[in-house]
């Protein structure tokens, strides 16, 4: 039932997501990498659902909702910051430091 491989795949995707978060400066893309991480987690849930029953799949729905909500708010925030600094490049966003 491909439990191990799926878990491994989710691990890889998760790591790649993390790597993306490290690598990108563009807030939007960075956020997309986070979405990638969430997807990886979803995969894990679905895979485990084979052993533990439907609940795993149900959780995936919640995760998706969360992802949607975060997406909405996150993109709104990105819009808001864009109004102030005509850019979404995180290197231009460091007024607060020290």
């Amino acid at each position, binding site marked *: 039932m491909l439990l*191990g491989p799926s*878990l491994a795949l989710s691990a*890889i995707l998760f*790591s790649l997501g993390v790597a993306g978060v*490290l690598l990108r400066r563009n807030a939007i893309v960075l956020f997309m990498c986070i979405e*990638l991480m969430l997807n990886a987690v979803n995969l894990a849930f*679905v895979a485990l659902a084979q052993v533990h029953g439907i609940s795993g*799949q149900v959780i995936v729905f919640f995760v998706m909702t*969360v992802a949607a909500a975060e997406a909405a708010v996150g993109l*709104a925030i990105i819009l808001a910051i864009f109004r102030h600094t005509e850019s979404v490049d995180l290197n231009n966003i460091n007024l607060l430091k020290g």
Partner: protein
Amino acid sequence: MMTEAVFYFFAVVAVLAALLCITQRNPVSAALWLVTTMFCLAAIYVLLNAHFVAAIQVLVYAGAIMVLFLFVIMLLNVGHAKSDLRGFSFWLLAVVVVGVLGGRLLPLINYTPERLTLEFSRTEALANPDIVFPEGRAGAEATENEGVVGAVAQPLFQTYLVPFEITSVLLLAAIIGAVVLAKRRL
């Protein structure tokens, strides 16, 4: 046999797409590669006989969320910005991180239902998933009897009623937040 082959095909594609997603200069193409990954995952969900989730995956993720992303990218017109990738040091760091994280997480590949069961029950006698984790078989049967939707809906509105309600609050908060922040004038 067939299933494995398909699984690995989609897995490889997913990984490659993910790689491209995080390395593509252009946000739009990055987004598109992410969509690709999501499609692959949807396919894999089907293989893991979670058909409904697969459908939702396509609809909600690839359909809604990613469109939202693309929309924002277009709106802010950062589409053809110069590379937003970080410098060499971060690449190095990324490799290290992926290495360590992967090194920690990849051992999960050895997991089989039996091992899960054994680790949980800690007794050789109780190494049978169907006994220790009856929900698994129950879930499969439920899908048989009530169809993919019913099987999911039933727990969603009974066992997971509370979380379900919480999600409604969550969405409400998200909507308000998005409106408050994004609206040009209040």
